[in-house]
């Protein structure tokens, strides 16, 4: 490790050009040690490029990057990258290595002994909520969400004080994405690291971020705490981005049916844990809505299935809403019960899933 803790990361006038195209345009940005800073902006706005200047996957044409006051160019590039965990959307687990080998790769290269590695891998699997038996599996036997968890475990292997995360949940279906966000929000405090996190999902930004930096066309438009952005947006673009509220201005007139997502892809009729697990594996899901003859039985998640002996034990009784419930009352009920999700049912038949977003919850 080049550093045991991060006091600050400073980007000064960082510029990156590809030919005539300016991907990152004179960005000045400071990341405070210990915070989770969100980089958000439309596709192509230069988030990934900017992020990659920190671990020198991209060398800026102009400007410098400092970690704890030292220019990153002074560091050996391999050592620098080992001191920085990196998680990406495409996951990038090595297909020829088991979960354990993937996670332990850097430990092995750093010369850890077998016992230490074993212990650390188990610790990390626990942290990312994967059963320890998964250690011996190959990545292609895992669902997308499970692979993403392994990717996070691998990034944390050497205990780096800094994590770079590039849309880590971007490729997942909406419900799984929410599940992983919830989990990540829970372990974030326990991680106690400095994290730079790229997303283009404003809800994710509000949910996970301490501060939010907004980019457009390679420029940093504004950076600040969520309330600063909402109360004092630098321009119309920022106002639009953070005030997703406006979209829901007529909250009272909106009904659950207007913003629920289709339940169809999550419906499954099955009688046993194995059958549901098989279905999840085939469809790459970690969440299912169980029905019997079309009537709602309950919801199950992959992790509850893996822990449960029988299907009954794994079933959760979800909050039920009707399609005509007003959004405002639906949301306050969810907020009161601490649920991030509710099922919309017509009689006994599930018709939709309502995901409470941070933006919506702040309104009620």
């Amino acid at each position, binding site marked *: 490790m080049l550093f045991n803790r991060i006091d600050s990361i400073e980007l000064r006038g960082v510029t990156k050009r590809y030919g005539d195209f300016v991907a990152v345009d004179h960005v000045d940005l400071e990341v405070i040690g210990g915070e989770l800073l969100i980089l958000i902006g439309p596709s192509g706005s230069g988030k990934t490029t900017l992020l990659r200047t920190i*671990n020198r*996957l991209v060398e800026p044409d102009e400007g410098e990057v400092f970690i704890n006051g030292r220019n990153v160019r002074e560091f050996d590039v*391999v*050592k*620098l*990258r*080992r*001191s*920085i*965990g*990196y998680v*990406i959307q*495409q996951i*990038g687990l*090595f*297909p*020829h290595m088991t979960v354990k080998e993937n996670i332990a*790769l*850097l430990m092995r*290269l750093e010369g850890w002994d077998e016992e230490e590695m074993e212990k650390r891998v188990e610790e990390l699997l626990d942290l990312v909520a994967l059963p320890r038996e998964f250690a011996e599996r190959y990545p*292609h036997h895992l669902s997308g969400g499970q692979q993403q968890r392994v990717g996070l475990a*691998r*990034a944390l292997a050497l205990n780096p004080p800094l994590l770079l995360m590039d849309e880590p949940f971007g490729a997942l279906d909406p419900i799984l994405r929410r599940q992983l966000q919830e989990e990540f929000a829970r372990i974030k405090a326990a991680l106690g690291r400095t994290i730079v996190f790229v997303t283009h999902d404003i809800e994710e930004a509000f949910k996970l971020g301490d501060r939010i930096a907004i980019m457009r066309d390679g420029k940093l438009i504004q950076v600040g705490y969520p309330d600063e952005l909402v109360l004092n947006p630098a321009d119309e673009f920022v106002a639009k981005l953070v005030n997703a509220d406006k979209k829901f201005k007529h909250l009272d007139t909106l009904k659950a049916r207007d913003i629920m997502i289709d339940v169809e892809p999550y419906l499954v009729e099955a009688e046993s844990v194995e059958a549901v697990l098989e279905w999840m594996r085939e469809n790459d899901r970690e969440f299912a809505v169980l029905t019997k003859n079309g009537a709602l039985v309950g919801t199950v998640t992959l992790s509850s299935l893996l822990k449960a002996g029988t299907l009954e034990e794994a079933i959760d009784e979800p909050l039920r809403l009707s399609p005509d419930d007003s959004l405002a009352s639906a949301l306050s009920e969810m907020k009161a019960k601490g649920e991030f999700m509710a099922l919309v049912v017509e009689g006994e038949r599930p018709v939709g899933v309502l995901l409470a977003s941070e933006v919506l919850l702040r309104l009620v």
Partner: protein
Amino acid sequence: MDVLWVWESQNLAQRTLEHLRMFGIALALSVVIGVLLGLYLYRRPKLAPIAFNVLNILETVPTLALLVLLLPLLGLGEKPTIAASVIYSILPIARNTYTGLTSVERSYIEVAEAIGLSEREILIKVRFPLALPLIAAGVRIAVVFTMGVVTLGGLIAAGGLGAPIQTGIHLYDRDIIVVTGLWVGLLALILDGVAALIERYLRGRYGRR
């Protein structure tokens, strides 16, 4: 046709051992040289087109001509036979090694760089294992080449199963030719089958999915 008579009189058990020994030595040398050459060319890609052109030209020399050309250098017997096998087998192994190493999906290399693997570590931990199925496919081609050349070695006193075929031709003895020929064919099939199994295992273990 008296299979047993041919087997005994031509000492086929002994000949088979000789044959497999030459085959083994030739193949082992081919694998070592081919893989090393493939690695070397991966490190010096500018040389690759030239090297592969030369190997391609060697590949087009008929086996008999190559054996004869090697006689003044290496004399009669095993040596020129093994040398000729190796010369033919280097190309498929080196080419597949080179292609395997260079065609590893870019995204895996990017991830490896991003999490802090050095150039060398990427070669050993990522490129090489992911290239193994393709290397094995090259070796499998070499198995077939080697079997053929080692059999022809009988013509230049290399021993092995080429020798009884040679005798059969001299004596105009159909039985010897057919029995030995079939036996060589069967051996070739078995060895190719083994190579195919190994290749399949490696594809399952290290292949891209």
